[in-house]
């Protein structure tokens, strides 16, 4: 009994002493692994060092459906994190599920941020009915990597060794044909056997024709169907001519480029650190660059998405008061230190960082930063975005179509059939 009393007293004392330390712990969930993860952890460490009163306790979970499912179920029972990363392409579903807590102007003020501090496209993607539901952290998009050594002697390099003269699909095809003739094994590489790579290239080619994936609740209606078919047919032709790899998994598609077997690569900005690091250690063996995907089909456009910070809606347990202020302090700090995130290839959504001299000195990041204006996000629907039915359709229908199982037009018919009734 005495022991029990002592314990009780001890506990009470400890609890009483807690506020004196006044330490806020911010529970943080993200899905960032690989190079992204390393850089994000460095940012978190940096924040923790500067703020003895606020400590971020980070957990990295599995990317994609598992992450979003966990967030959904955890917040439903009030066991979610205080702050989490969220793909803005996934925001429409998050809003339907009521998972995202509104970021008020007051919240933004706590973080010393304003909406006008950010690029418009990601802010728009995070907004519904004028209310903001996430704070964008970056824009990450599809870009065109090139191997300058392989292109030497072609009309596609200028005197400084920069890519030039690709202004239409004919130019690009000619460049691919030129490379093939010169003995380049796979002139253009991208992930042809997986959902992400296929979707990004397809969506870019569709958007460059001014096509839209969903209009007024209809999947590929009107002439969007023909535009989508054309996009798929272009990708099929690349494969047929031996210009693009057959059924390449993601890692293989990157390896083709880094091994010098491809003159071009269509991939996200997040692979920039890979080639930078290889180059630094002297293992790359060729000069390379990266640019915004040229306007091949008339219009400047490139697939893009955005990582953002969001606060889960947890009913009565949705964080408020000091905890919320601490979270907003974290978000504000991250935005202002986004240069460490730009290092991962991403374009910071916070304009002050992107226009800084430090960012402008980063190559090739500064070269492709122009794409922030041409960035096209997935439509705001519940069937598109990361780990969505549209991604499934890319794997299930578009990828095999590219391999020659089906024409572009037939594939489009099947996409419409598969996705239309999910749009309710």
């Amino acid at each position, binding site marked *: 009994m005495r022991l029990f009393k002592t314990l009780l007293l001890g506990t009470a004392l400890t609890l009483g002493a807690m506020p004196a330390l006044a330490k806020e712990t911010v529970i943080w969930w993200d899905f960032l692994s690989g190079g992204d993860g390393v850089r994000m952890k460095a940012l978190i460490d940096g924040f923790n060092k500067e703020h003895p009163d606020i400590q971020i306790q980070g957990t990295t979970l599995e990317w994609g*459906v598992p992450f979003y*499912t966990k967030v*959904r*179920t955890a917040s*439903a029972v009030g066991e979610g994190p205080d702050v989490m990363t969220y793909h803005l392409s996934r925001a429409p*579903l998050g809003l*339907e*599920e009521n998972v995202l807590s509104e970021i008020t102007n007051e919240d933004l003020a706590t973080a010393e941020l304003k909406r006008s501090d950010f690029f418009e496209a990601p802010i728009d993607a995070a907004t519904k009915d004028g209310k903001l539901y996430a704070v964008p952290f970056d824009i990450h998009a599809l870009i065109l990597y090139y191997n300058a050594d392989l292109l030497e002697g072609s009309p596609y390099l200028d005197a400084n060794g920069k890519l030039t003269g690709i202004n239409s699909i004919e130019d690009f095809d000619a460049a691919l044909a030129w490379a093939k003739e010169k003995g380049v094994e796979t002139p253009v590489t991208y992930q042809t*056997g997986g*959902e992400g790579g296929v979707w990004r290239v397809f969506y870019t080619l569709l958007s460059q024709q001014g096509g839209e994936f969903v209009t007024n609740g209809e999947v590929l209606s009107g002439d969007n169907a023909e535009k989508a078919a054309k996009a798929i047919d272009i990708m099929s032709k690349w494969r047929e001519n031996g210009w693009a790899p*057959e*059924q*390449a*998994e993601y890692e*293989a598609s990157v390896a083709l480029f880094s091994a010098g077997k491809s003159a071009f690569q269509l991939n996200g900005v997040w692979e920039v650190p890979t080639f930078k690091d290889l180059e630094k250690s002297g293992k790359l063996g060729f000069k390379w660059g990266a640019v915004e995907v040229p306007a091949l089909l008339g219009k400047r456009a490139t697939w893009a998405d955005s990582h953002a910070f969001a606060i889960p809606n947890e009913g009565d347990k949705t964080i408020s008061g000091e905890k919320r202020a601490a979270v907003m302090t974290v978000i504000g700090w991250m935005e202002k230190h986004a240069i460490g995130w730009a290092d991962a290839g991403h374009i910071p959504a916070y304009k002050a960082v992107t226009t800084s001299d430090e960012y402008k000195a980063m190559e090739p990041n500064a070269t492709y930063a122009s794409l922030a204006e041409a960035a096209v996000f997935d439509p705001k629907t*519940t*069937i598109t975005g990361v*780990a*969505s*039915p549209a991604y*499934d359709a890319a*794997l*299930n*229908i578009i*990828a*095999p179509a590219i*391999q020659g*199982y*089906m024409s572009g037009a037939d594939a489009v018919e*099947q996409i419409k*059939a*598969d996705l239309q*009734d*999910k749009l309710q």
Partner: protein
Amino acid sequence: MAMIENRKKKSLIALTMVAPFIVVFSTFFLYPMIEMIRMSFTDAPLVGEGNWVGVDNYIRLIGDRLFVTSLKNNGYFVLLTVVPTTVIALLIALAVSRLKGVAQTLALSLFFLPYVLPVSVVTEIWAWMLDLQFGILQPLIALVSGKPVAVFKNPYWVMPMVALVTIWWTNGFNVLLFIAGLRNIPQELYEAAALDGATRFQRFRRVTWPLLWPVTALVLTLQLILQLKIFDQIYLLSGGGPFNSSYVLLLKVYREAFQMNHGGYASAVATVLFMLIAVVSVLQYQLLRIRRGA
């Protein structure tokens, strides 16, 4: 009086002994099952309550092209696996039972080893072996079809290949069941048959086969239930593609519930699958028992 008291006492003891099971069964099976059926009549999201919509979900199911496709694919997969896996297990068991001592133990563990592996490891092994660019089995495939094939991305190859992986993975357990069955057959019967001049085939046909039939019926039924529940391998190897040619019912449940947030509709699909398994397995088991009786 004493008798009645005694009986009461006995029931009480019995009840305490079955109580843990009843509690666990009700909490983790009965209650979720009732909830699932109830939810299938609502438009509930993944978490939370929905509105009562009656049989709407079921009516929608009938018109759902993907549901019909998955039903067919489930059927195709059952055809591809249930009987072949049973036959292969029987053949392996017969061969292994002829071995003695260490050799038998070794052979048994070799066949049982894959069963120990988690599904993610199994699928990873096979995905690598069958990789289009680097897979060590591709030359073998090229021998058959003339060129390397990305098997999990090919509408014709995908189901048979998933079936192959599944059989390789799960066969050890069936072999074990058959071995146990074979050991239960009294040796005297074989001796008597041999004395009567029965050939090896006759001994199998008249002694082994009939006495092994209960085990065979069990294996067939277990396999049927297991293979109707196919999910992991499909999810990891092909994601239901290409062109939905490996889309199965459980994948539909998963996608509707966790990806699309349609809890009610997913429950309807799950309920249909549950009924299907219950009906088909009971039916099959009864049919197999009739055969034994005949």
